């Protein structure tokens, strides 16, 4: 047997154990923030072109600054004249390792490419319209060209850029606007589908259905929340994708619409549960007062119960959006993952979580692409954190009221 003072120490130790356990969630949240930011912020200290490569122009070229997206346009040959970039009317000559033999005979480069740097220098200085892209190891010692200064990735370019091609050569395109819009489209579509169904079901369960029926329906709806998202994705892929494809006569069935339908179904349990709880929280006295004044059940519902529980309903909508925004696997499997700015629900779209899930496996740790995906994680975290915060504020207000 422990004596009294031993027991007291033991209780103190146990309390310490309890305390440290209770801090685990807070520490985790802080760690998640630290790790996301430490990996993701690095993106804005890196250059969007490959490490140990350089881009050079003829010295006489008046263009001294080219944005990453313009570099991409040039190397895709969408822009072929310097005048479009504010330069002289001179056609652009691409000059890279891939096409060097078009300009310089192979035998004059030397067996081990030992003459390559000198040839690069000669070619760039003798052609005014050239833009060259080579590894640093071939940089001539005496270089008579203008080496293009490539700035770090900017936050505004990241958020507003319209192209997401993170592995593009020579300049990675790291614009996440299509991903943000894709996420929002799919999520709002999901809420448009889930909200009327969810509200009707919640009202039915809370006010109309008798207790026995409710006790059967409620666990089934909770079960709907238990189905793994990958199973929803699978179901969407084998059932709803072909259905949508046939109904609308599309070339591909993987569209934002299918994503919204699946996410809508997945958001239903959240919306139903929270709405039903807030409808049930309406004081009995208010309901009965309304009925006693001669109002019908329907009038009581519309004029008394729904106004009373409107903040709960708002919380349900926001939380439903939160679920939809963060959902990964189901969306990844059914939306087609095309990183274009969406214009209709019958188009493939790509969301932020799906992008992370699809690409992180291929991105080498610490590289530009890897950092960009963590930066996407930051954006996702901020969106969902904001949503949770809003819900908490709504909840605490209702409590006080």
């Amino acid at each position: 047997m422990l004596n009294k003072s031993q027991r007291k120490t033991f209780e103190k130790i146990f309390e310490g154990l309890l305390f440290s356990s209770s801090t685990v969630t807070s520490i985790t949240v802080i760690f998640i923030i630290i790790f996301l930011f430490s990996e993701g912020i690095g993106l804005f200290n890196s250059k969007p072109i490959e490490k140990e490569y350089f881009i050079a122009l003829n010295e006489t070229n008046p263009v001294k600054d080219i944005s990453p997206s313009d570099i991409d346009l040039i190397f895709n040959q969408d822009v072929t004249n310097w005048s479009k970039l504010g330069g002289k009317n001179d056609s652009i000559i691409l000059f890279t390792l891939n096409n060097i033999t078009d300009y310089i005979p192979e035998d004059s480069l030397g067996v081990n490419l030992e003459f390559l740097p000198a040839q690069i220098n000669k070619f760039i200085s003798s052609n005014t319209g050239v833009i060259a892209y080579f590894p640093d190891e071939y940089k001539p010692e005496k270089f008579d060209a203008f080496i293009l200064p490539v700035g770090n990735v900017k936050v505004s370019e990241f958020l507003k850029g319209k192209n997401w091609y993170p592995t593009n050569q020579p300049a990675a395109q790291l614009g996440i606007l299509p991903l943000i819009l894709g996420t929002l489209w799919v999520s709002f579509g999901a809420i448009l589908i889930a909200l009327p169904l969810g509200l009707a079901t919640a009202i039915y369960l809370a006010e109309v259905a008798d207790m026995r029926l409710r006790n059967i329906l409620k666990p089934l709806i909770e079960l709907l929340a238990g189905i793994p998202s990958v199973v929803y994705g699978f179901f969407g892929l084998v059932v709803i994708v072909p259905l949508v494809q046939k109904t609308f006569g599309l070339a591909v069935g993987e569209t934002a619409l299918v994503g919204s339908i699946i996410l809508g179904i997945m958001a239903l349990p959240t919306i139903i549960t929270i709405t039903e709880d807030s409808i049930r929280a309406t004081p009995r006295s208010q309901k009965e007062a309304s009925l006693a004044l001669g109002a019908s059940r329907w009038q009581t519902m519309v004029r008394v119960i729904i106004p009373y529980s409107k903040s709960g309903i708002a919380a349900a909508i926001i939380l439903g959006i939160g679920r939809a925004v963060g959902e990964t696997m189901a969306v990844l499997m059914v939306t087609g993952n095309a990183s274009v700015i969406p214009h209709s629900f019958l188009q493939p779209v790509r969301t932020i979580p799906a992008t992370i899930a699809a690409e992180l496996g291929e991105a080498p740790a610490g590289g530009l692409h890897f950092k960009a995906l963590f930066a996407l994680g930051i954006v996702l975290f901020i969106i969902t954190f904001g949503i949770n915060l809003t819900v908490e504020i709504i909840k605490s207000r209702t409590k006080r009221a």
Partner: protein
Amino acid sequence: MKSKKRFYEFLVFNIFRIISFLVVGLLFVILFFISIRGIGVINWEFLTSMPKEGMTQGGIFPAIVGTFCLMVGSMLFAFPIGVLSGIYTNEYLKESRFKSFLRSMTNNLAGIPSIVFGLFGMALFVNKLHFGDSLIAGSLTLGLLALPVIIRTTEEALKTVDMSLRTGSYALGATKLQTIRRVVFPIAFPNILTGLILSMGRVSGETAPILFTVAAYFLPKLPQSIFDQAMALPYHLYVLTTSGTNMEESRPMAYGTAFVLIMIVLIFNLLANWLRRYFGKKVKM
């Protein structure tokens, strides 16, 4: 006038009823669709052999084992911490700023998307702590994901214990710890257990957190240690449907895997419901 109003009300309520049945019907559509196509694939060989021939033949044994390991591993970590944490916030802390801070942090953790857990698990466990893609990295990531649910169910369970039982125990001279251990915890335990079972069901289906922390695309052997990679059912289903070598021929395998996954979730849910009812009756007596 009055009858018109009545009719209107009748109409609306019936529409609501139809919608409610529709919503529940969705569940059955999904369950039946996958069961009908999946149940034919299930046999002893499917459940106990390795995948073969580019995953178009053979079974899903390593994925079942992997998922089981992840469920157990994550709960070994999350259950004690979650329960202790729930006890602390409910039994020890008075309403204070600190308590609401802890609560909102737990809520925030619950609201973080699962893919962000995946990113975090990869950055911390796989890269920083050099666990590599391993069962331990996956279990810890999944454990953190399940933690808020366990904390919340523990708190709810403790709240249902009547205050008079606690004061009675104190009056008999018991200390706080004794009261919790001998009086409060045994009464709350069935409900806590329900939370454990539900979160095990949930963990079994999570895919995004294990993508980069443990899951192997194709690994026809069982994990030998906690530092090994493993296959897992949800990831296996994803691979079979989106990036298998021959998607047409591996479709039956996908239906079978989806069926097993759904069965696990269903069984865990039913078990939790049964427990809740069984002990619910007992406690009331």
